[in-house]
């Protein structure tokens, strides 16, 4: 179930389907742009919000300003471009932090089991009783606005999913003979958890987590739109849409393009997720392998 060639098979499957390939291309582009965005800006100061240009307010899209300008006369293209980085940071931050909380909880609940495990999973269930985003909204409203706070708020509403996944995985792995063998060998519980169980439980979760980044971007944008996310002048996409709302009748482009950026990015992640989910379906994969994919 977790051989290293798994990713290879997945990639071969994705390459077969043009739609999935599109997803992959979008995601890769997003990551690259997110990493290099600060270095390719043509108007970095406007993008970072430390320069403005009053006489160029509300310019519609043109070759000079492909996405137009906002109420400060800042170039929206540069703002959206830089926003890629913040979305990437949020995506990685949220998913990473959620894994950081979820994995130990799921691991301990699954491996130790008993009363501790039950208690941990009950707590997890309580977090899961909130609709997605609601808990994050509550937390963000309490913690105050900020990039870190947004990431923390989202991660706290997010980790239970991973705890659940890990719990299920660990439960099935811990009764496998190689874990018994490790115990017979006299290894400590921690060694067994981190050397023998975790690496084998991790693949499906990390794949899932990487694909969840799309949702993280979407939810962070939602928080920003509701005014409890990232504060201005950060060019986070959701915030840009929200800021443009005020002048939408006069300048539709301020809200339109950042929103489009969200749509494309999240679409990329979701298309990829779709393909991977198909690839992870054992029946389908078996059939495809037999066909000699």
């Amino acid at each position, binding site marked *: 179930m977790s051989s290293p060639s798994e990713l290879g098979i997945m990639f071969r499957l994705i390459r077969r389907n043009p739609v999935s390939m599109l997803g992959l291309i979008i995601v890769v582009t997003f990551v690259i742009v997110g990493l290099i965005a600060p270095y390719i800006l043509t108007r970095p*100061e406007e993008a970072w*919000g*430390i*320069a*403005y240009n*009053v006489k160029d*307010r*509300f310019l519609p899209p043109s070759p000079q300003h492909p996405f137009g300008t906002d*109420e*400060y006369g800042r170039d929206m293209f540069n703002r959206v471009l830089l926003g890629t980085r913040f979305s990437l940071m949020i995506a990685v931050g949220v998913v990473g932090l959620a894994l950081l909380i979820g994995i130990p909880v799921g691991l301990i609940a699954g491996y130790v089991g008993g009363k501790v495990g039950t208690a941990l999973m009950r707590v997890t269930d309580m977090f899961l009783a909130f609709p997605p985003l609601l808990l994050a909204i509550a937390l963000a409203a309490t913690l*105050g*606005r*900020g990039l870190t706070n947004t990431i923390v708020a989202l991660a706290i509403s997010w980790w239970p999913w991973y705890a659940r996944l890990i719990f299920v995985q660990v439960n099935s792995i811990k009764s496998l003979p190689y874990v018994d063998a490790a115990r017979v060998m006299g290894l400590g519980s921690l060694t067994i958890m981190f050397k023998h169980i975790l690496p084998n439980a991790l693949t499906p979760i990390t794949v899932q987590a990487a694909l969840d980044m799309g949702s993280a971007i979407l939810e962070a944008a939602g928080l920003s739109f509701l*005014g409890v996310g990232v*504060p*201005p*002048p950060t060019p986070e996409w959701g915030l840009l849409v929200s800021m443009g*709302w*005020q*002048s*939408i*009748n*006069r*300048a539709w482009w301020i809200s339109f393009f950042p929103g489009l950026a969200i749509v494309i990015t999240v679409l990329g992640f979701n298309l990829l997720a779709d393909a991977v989910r198909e690839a992870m379906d054992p029946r389908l994969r078996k059939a495809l392998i037999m066909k000699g994919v």
Partner: protein
Amino acid sequence: MGVFEVFIPLHRKGISKAVAAVIAIVIIIGVIAAAAYYMAQRPTSTSTTALSPTISASPTTSSTSSTTSASPTISSTSTTKPSGKTVVVYASLSEMTTADPSTEFSNSILWMCLVYEPLLWYDPIHDKIIPALATSYEVSKNGTVWTFHLRHDAKFHDGTPVTAQAVKFSIERTIKLGQGAAFIWDPVKEIKTPDKYTVVFILKYPAPLDKIAASSYGAWIFSPKVVELAGAKNATDKKVADWFNAGHDDGSGPYRLVKWDPQNEVVLEKFKDWWGWKLADYPMKSDSAPDVFIIKIVKDAVTQERMVQSGDIDIAEYVPLEDVQTLKKNPNLQVVTSPSFQNLLMLINTRKPPLDNVLVRRAIAHAIPYEDIVTVARSGFAKVASGPIPHGMWGHFDNLTYTYNLTLAKELLAKAGYPNGLPRPLLLTYTAGDIYEQRTAELIKASLAKIGITVKIRPMSWQEQWSLAQSGWNNSKAAQDLFIFYWWPTYITPFDFLYNMFDNESKSFDLCYYANPKFNKLIEEAHYYEGIDKAKALHLYYEAQKILYEDVPAVPLWDMVDIRVARANIGNLQAAINPAYPTVIFAQVLHVKAGG
């Protein structure tokens, strides 16, 4: 299985039923779409729709949910039908709050100014007192005895006459309850009623009681009969407040409250026996004032804009400022601007290094692009501030603006010992959700960056922000560096601004932690002379503001200019707006013309 038989009737009866169901759904959607399209084609109603007679006059409206007016029907879109009543709909951004004239200190000002009257009105633009319930007044030489003469023909909505006893009753109830704006009566030692139409106030210390009596809050006069109507023991019985909050009024103003649904709408109807209608030359009335004035709660600017364009409302409190230029071109609409006494300042933490250095503060004051801020934050609908007293108000002076001069700012900073900018970033807080504060903050961040000052801006809820600022009294290091802050006066005096924000006795709002005994003494004296010797008071206020200009405990940024967008047929709108009573439209002075 039971549940799904209802839900998907397909599996038992087979294909014909299934197809039928799908077809039925398609038809339903089609009908809905067609109906929707038909409705879209129907012309929308125009403004000042006339109500046929049935907005009932009974003032016994109860609670928020029920409406007294038994299904009012609108006869046609024309205003001039003999039986029709003229209606003006004013959209308010915020929900109404309470209905108790003694304690209300918030949004209900919007209608209270029409339903209740104070002793006097104040016109701050012309610095003029306008008679209301009092026709004239005198003040003793030392400023501590104020005598008001009431008009003889004023009546409360319950039919009883407005008398000196009623005035005493109202103000004493307000003072005793001690909530809301009751503090304005602080100088009053005693209220005497020598005869039916004379009220005498004995003060503990001199104070401009004429302006206090014209305060936008806490100065309403209402009938003593409310105690009886509410079935209460006395004026301060909670039953009286409950009676008011159930949607009753007993004022003497030109309108009466007929529907009280604070979250959706408030309906006011003309009070025919108002004394003002009969006075030929009274400035605050019109012969074609609307019969019905509806305050409708429309909580966002974009919707208000759409509704005023379509004529669903007649006056918008608030539209997106970016759109005003476009709206001006619409022949069906008019745009009215008026000064507002609300201004925006940036308070500086004067105790936290390096801001304790006056040179640094001056450098900051000269590095702020005031004009750009006004253009971006308010689309030009504001004035660059000159001192903490807003434009148009008595006590304002035009030569207190800091120039925007980055060279000078850099020089000042170098002189203060920071030729390469400040060593640490400054924390600037503003109220989250306020778009004007937000834009202002962003521009300040951008421009201070040019002289080497890094600003971290943090939007916070007002409460958190205020408690953070409060903590500065004990530990100025823990507090914010810069604090974007609105002020507006409770009653119109420069003292209100200067004392609250800059006198260290005022712990609540002197959030610059500024303490200057000389300044404190100046404004105290000025306030003393305000009722006695205006010229002297003015001079003292000027001296005080000059001290602030030099010390820069705060940077005044801009004074708000209010925008009202209305249908073109609403006449005399300009006169219906008075910055001393923010957000209020004095409906009694509107000229309502037909059509629109």
